[in-house]
């Protein structure tokens, strides 16, 4: 009887201590786990470590109060300044009133020099290698031809449709592998050049599909991305009919000395791995009344930019006087990027 009682008491003690131990262990494990997560989330660099937590928990930029926006911008300025070893400014300037940006490109004048591509990369802090990200593509295309010799070749079918040879050879055939063409001189004979970038659609399909509403259209017509809110699902990339969006497959490589310190929160501030980016009509410049980098650098003046609400702007004049066409009008995206011919 005594033995049994003793056993029960000991077991009771063991039982009690086990529960206590278990709770203790669970508590310690939870703390260790949280510490581990914290270590994983925070960066190794001082500046990064200080702001990552706050950045992690910040909300969608559109939903932030003015105070929250200011704090977010200050955090980024501090981190970027320490990371890149120079004074970096992050602008949060909103869209100007009574401005709707539009762009026009003279397809006849473009000589395919790709200076716009390089200027864009430099201005917008795009990754320089692995991957080399470019927001503007310039495609080399075959010119259409008219040959009088071919006029009699071919014959009309029963329905009056030309069969066989034709005097006119259609333009618009993409030459093989011409995205990164490297000719000795431009423009080349029998080729014309077709630059493509974000069309800043009035009804952007990319905005419609974004599940977290990180990409949206600003009042001045520019479609922007809050990189901190982007989850990298690539839905917008699938929806964009112009192939204008780029995904950061790796950690972007932006050398410190090449970093443009004049940035905007919704524009050219350095991006991170796993987020989407695209042309923003250089809003860090255009919202201050400057031209985009590509317009400024174009040596032949093929690129024009302006306010579609202003009847005196270059874009409106082009729309009134030139022969204009747009890409993929069939989709009713209402692109605000126009191609024109003199």
């Amino acid at each position, binding site marked *: 009887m005594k033995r049994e009682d003793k056993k029960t008491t000991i077991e009771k003690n063991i039982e009690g201590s086990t529960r206590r131990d278990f709770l203790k262990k669970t508590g310690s494990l939870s703390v260790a786990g949280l510490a581990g997560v914290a270590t994983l989330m925070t960066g190794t660099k001082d500046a990064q470590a200080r702001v990552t937590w706050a950045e992690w928990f910040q909300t969608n930029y559109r939903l932030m109060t003015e105070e929250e926006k200011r704090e977010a911008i200050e955090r980024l300025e501090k981190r970027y300044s320490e990371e890149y070893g120079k004074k970096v400014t992050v602008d949060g300037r909103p869209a100007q009133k009574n401005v709707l940006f539009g762009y026009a490109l003279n397809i006849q004048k473009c000589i395919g020099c790709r200076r716009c591509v390089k200027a864009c990369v430099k201005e917008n802090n795009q990754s320089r290698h692995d991957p080399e990200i470019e927001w503007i593509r310039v495609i080399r295309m075959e010119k259409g031809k008219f040959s009088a010799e071919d006029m009699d070749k071919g014959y009309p079918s029963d329905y009056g449709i030309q069969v066989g040879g034709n005097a006119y050879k259609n333009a*618009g055939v*993409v030459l093989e592998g011409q*995205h990164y063409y490297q000719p000795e001189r431009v423009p080349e004979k029998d080729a014309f050049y077709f630059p*493509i970038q974000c069309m800043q659609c009035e009804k952007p399909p990319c905005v419609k599909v974004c599940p977290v509403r990180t990409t949206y259209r600003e009042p001045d017509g520019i479609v922007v991305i809050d990189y901190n809110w982007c989850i990298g699902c690539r839905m917008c990339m699938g929806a964009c009919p112009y192939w204008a969006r780029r995904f950061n497959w790796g950690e972007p490589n932006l050398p410190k000395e090449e970093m443009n310190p004049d940035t905007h929160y919704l524009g050219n501030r350095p991006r991170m791995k796993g987020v989407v980016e695209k042309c923003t009509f250089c809003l860090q410049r255009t919202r201050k009344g400057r031209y985009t980098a590509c317009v400024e650098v174009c040596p032949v003046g093929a690129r024009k930019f302006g306010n579609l609400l202003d009847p005196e702007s270059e874009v409106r004049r082009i729309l009134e006087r030139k*022969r204009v066409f747009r890409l993929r009008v069939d989709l009713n995206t209402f692109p605000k990027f126009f191609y024109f011919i003199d």
Partner: protein
Amino acid sequence: MGEESKKELTLSVSAPSGTSKEDHASRRTFIKNLAIAGAVIGTNALVAKKVASVVLEKDPQRAYLEDVLPGDRVMMAREYVVMTDEEKKRLVKTLIENYKKRLG
């Protein structure tokens, strides 16, 4: 006989405490198993994530080109139709009206 009845008595008295002990033991075992299962699943997930990140990691440049280049052909395999004056006027009007509607 007297000894046996004592033992029986002892057993019958200690029976309820034995049941409670079993209850505790099974709860303890369950929690222990749960903790072990959690740890195993967590470890497996971490290992799988690490392996996947090493094995499935795409070459960023190649992945980027796979994203971009198919677009060239699709974009160019289209007919581009010059807008009529009427279309241009209507477009400008629509854009201005949209702007006013959005911003009052």
